């Protein structure tokens, strides 16, 4: 497994599975250590210029010009990879006066507006960190399976260019959409945001271009991928699945009406809306409780504090609790009367499927693949609407018959559609498809297919910008058979 991490000291949140051989970390935000031995040649300058031209030129993402720009961007990335793999010191060059001047010139030519040196330096630094996966030796594998678009795909691109490796890309949420939402919350200058989001947009498009198979986790999210250049003939919607026996149905309900949230404590989960909604619930049902389970990444510590402050300000201390990470999510789901998820962006949330497997009704927001997962196992409401969330929660909490019906529907929907076996079978199908494709092209096939899973960094901007690696497992086809 390759993990894009913030530094070198991150600890594993979960026990490594037996079939995980090794984890290769690529720290993105450690200080640049130099290391490149070669001075830049014209190769880097022209590649970097191509990259800047492709990402800074504004056009309709559905246009033919946009498709050309993605191709040019991919070509430029390859040039940068070649430069770095030949020993070039990419970070030093991008942040040198010459590199920054190149960026300033491209911006002025294309956008026809001024750019301060401070902003140009900020972008040059961010790019030097984010392109770091291109500066490490390309991984050797039979298939590279990236769990996300964006920076993770740089690892896949390097493997493809170096070894001709097939690339599978799963996209849980939509990388680009989440970057767009992240950057709305930052106070970075508009020019920095414009450049970085142009980079992310073009990188995401290049990722779709180079992937041999794209597996969105919900049909709704396909729209963004298609808009950004994904080829529908190489797309298969793949729902996440859970192992039912690991998430047994709950037989009882808690004594007090209890709403449970399970997931990362993150702005994308919009816990403020859930906490605000709970004020209405608590007014109606004074014994009701809201229990929020989930880990807090260092980058989200400030957000967790705002949640705590909100709980205090709304006079909900005691009724609403931040419980931290739990060893067994099953215990958290079983402690719920209803499970709530109020995200503003989602792919196909595992927590939702796990809760449904445990036979819990859900109240959640209409984002990403959530409605596809829920159907009649819960209530879907508009995001950022505390009143709607509260109404739905009260309805489920106070209507025993409805709750029972939803609980049964939830469990049966998971067993029917969202089991781990089905999910693995679907991926196996994709691997086999690529395998056959390889057979047609290559004289000899490997004995085993070793797909390589890539984790993604969830970075935010600025100085405050930091990444967080999600765990992924390396799956050996040979072991599965």
């Amino acid at each position: 497994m390759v993990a894009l991490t913030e530094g070198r000291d991150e600890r594993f949140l979960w026990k490594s599975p037996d079939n995980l051989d090794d984890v290769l970390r690529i720290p993105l935000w450690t200080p640049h250590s130099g290391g490149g031995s070669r001075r830049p040649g014209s190769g880097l300058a022209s590649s970097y210029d191509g990259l800047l031209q492709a990402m800074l030129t504004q056009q309709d993402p559905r246009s033919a010009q946009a498709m050309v720009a993605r191709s040019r961007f991919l070509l430029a990335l390859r040039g940068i990879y070649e430069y770095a793999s030949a020993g070039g010191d990419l970070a030093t060059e991008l942040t040198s006066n010459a590199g920054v001047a190149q960026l300033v010139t491209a911006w002025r030519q294309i956008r026809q507006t001024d750019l301060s040196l401070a902003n140009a330096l900020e972008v040059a630094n961010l790019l030097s960190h984010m392109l770091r996966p291109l500066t490490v030796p390309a991984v050797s594998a039979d298939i590279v399976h990236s769990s996300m678009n964006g920076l993770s795909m740089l690892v896949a691109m390097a493997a493809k260019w170096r070894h001709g490796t097939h690339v599978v890309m799963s996209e849980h949420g939509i990388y680009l959409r989440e970057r767009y939402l992240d950057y709305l919350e930052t106070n970075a200058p508009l020019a920095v945001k414009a450049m970085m989001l142009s980079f992310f947009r073009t990188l995401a498009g290049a990722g779709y271009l180079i992937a041999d198979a794209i597996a969105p986790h919900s049909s709704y999210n396909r729209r963004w991928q298609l808009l950004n250049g994904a080829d529908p003939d190489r797309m298969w919607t793949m729902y996440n699945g859970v192992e039912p026996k690991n998430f047994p149905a709950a037989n009882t309900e808690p004594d007090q009406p209890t709403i449970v949230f399970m997931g990362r404590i993150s702005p994308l989960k919009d816990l403020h809306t859930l906490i605000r909604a709970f004020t209405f619930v608590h007014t109606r049902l004074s014994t009701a409780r809201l229990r929020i389970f989930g880990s807090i990444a260092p980058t989200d510590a400030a957000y967790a504090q705002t949640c705590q402050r909100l709980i205090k300000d709304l006079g909900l201390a005691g009724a609403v609790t931040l419980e931290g990470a739990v060893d067994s999510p099953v215990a958290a789901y079983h402690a719920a009367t209803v499970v709530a998820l109020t995200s503003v962006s989602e792919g196909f949330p595992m927590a939702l499927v796990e809760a449904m497997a445990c036979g819990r009704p859900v109240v959640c927001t209409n984002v990403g693949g959530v409605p596809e997962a829920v159907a009649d196992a819960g209530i879907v409401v508009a995001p950022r609407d505390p009143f709607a969330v509260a109404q739905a929660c009260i309805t489920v909490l106070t209507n025993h018959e409805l709750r029972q019906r939803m609980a049964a529907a939830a469990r049966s929907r998971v067993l029917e559609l969202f089991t781990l076996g089905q999910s693995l079978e679907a991926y196996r199908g994709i691997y086999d498809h690529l395998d056959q494709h390889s057979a047609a092209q290559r004289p000899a096939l490997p004995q085993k297919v070793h797909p390589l899973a890539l984790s993604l960094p969830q970075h935010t901007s600025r100085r405050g910008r930091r990444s967080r690696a999600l765990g992924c497992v390396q799956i050996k086809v040979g072991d599965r058979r």
Partner: protein
Amino acid sequence: MTSGAIMPKARVVAQDVTSDVAGLPAKVGYADPFDALVDEMRPVALRSVDTMQVAASLESAGVTDRAARVRFGYADVFDLADEVCRRVGPGSDQPYPRRARNWTAELRDIGHGLLYLLPGAAFPIAFGALGRQTLVVGVLVAATLGWVWSGVTAWLAYQMLGDGKPGCAGRLLRWSSLAALPVAALTGAAVARVTGTSYGVVVLAVAQMAYQMAITTLVFYRREVLAFVSMTPALMAGIGYAFGGADVLPTATGLCLASLGLALAVALKQTTSQPTSRPTSQPGDQPGGSDPPLSLALRQKFRPLLPMLAFIMLSAAFFLIPQGRHLLGQSDIAIAFIPVIAGMGVVEWRARLFGDAARTLLTRVGHPRQFVVRVWGLVLSGLAICLVSVSALAAVLITVLDRTGQLTPAIGFMATAGVLLAGAYYLGFLLANLGRFRELCGSLLVCAGSYAASGLVTGGDMRRDTTALLAATTALILLYLAALAGCVGQAQRHR
């Protein structure tokens, strides 16, 4: 809302992957729901960089493709976002705010020179109590040890503060201050034994070290005023001794030591009363849990400390070698160093101001070429201010000495060398802030080594020796400027 009303909606949502847009309440005062949407989205759209970002925001607010079609009449969210952006228009960046100058902080920086000069007030008392030989040996030993010890402590403390570990910084300052006293005592005792001077050196070394650590800590916490107030009794004692002579020696000595004790106590108090850790970062965290143990924080800084340590030691050597060479033979030449010591506040002020000004410059220029030209303007203007300020102090000193008939050519040369030394320290601070320790240490090694070696040639001749010091200091300035030429224009180094 009844369950019957919600369930069908949920099914529709599941099937059509949209929300029930018909149920959305119309905004009061808007005939067209699109107008309401535009007004609602205006702040977001002005902060957005393109229509896709507005589309992402619309989706996160619950607007789906179906809502775009049914409620607003557009094909999908992306088309809707296009139109919202067209109606709102482009956003624009706010110019960087101009930072107001903090004159109080700047005056505090300038005042550091007086803090460094303050121990001089007690030297006549030490002279009276311990004798000339013990005073000179004690001052040299204590100044060298204190310079290095306090320099290393301050650097580590600032590093920890920069890493967001103020608790570690406080603990380091506290324990380092306390540990410094026995170390100074042992060193003083060893020197007394080796040189055969009185064990009064021990007292002098401990007192000087206590003062250095107190000042280091109080400057770290920006409590310079407390330092001045704490040391006022010592100053008064020095003045009293100058007028009262041997009769008041015991009282003056006691007052000096009490003043030192007070300064150190006040400084140590700062390390416990200032915030010792960042706010807890996670619910359920224990207070102070974000600051690691001091030993761990120190281990992490060990490697970067080595070049810094070398720089501090060589800087101390370059300053103290000439003092050592002359003070032992002609103690009145020490007066020539007063301008440079008093002017060190100006040097620190300009060095700090340069960093701020260079960062501000990044927001004012639009091309690295412009930056290179203007940053050199900053370097040279800072250098000129340091040289002129210390020159003015030296001119006052020379004038006073001349009028009182105490001016010697050696003092004049030494004071001039001090002026150049101030310029060299200013450039050295810039290089240190840019992390150019290799160049710093190399330059210092060459110049300090050359000057030390010149002693073999000058044969103790004061005039030739001070000329050698002048030459070495001039060479140091030139070497520092050459080192700066390779890095100060790189904009990246000033972020």
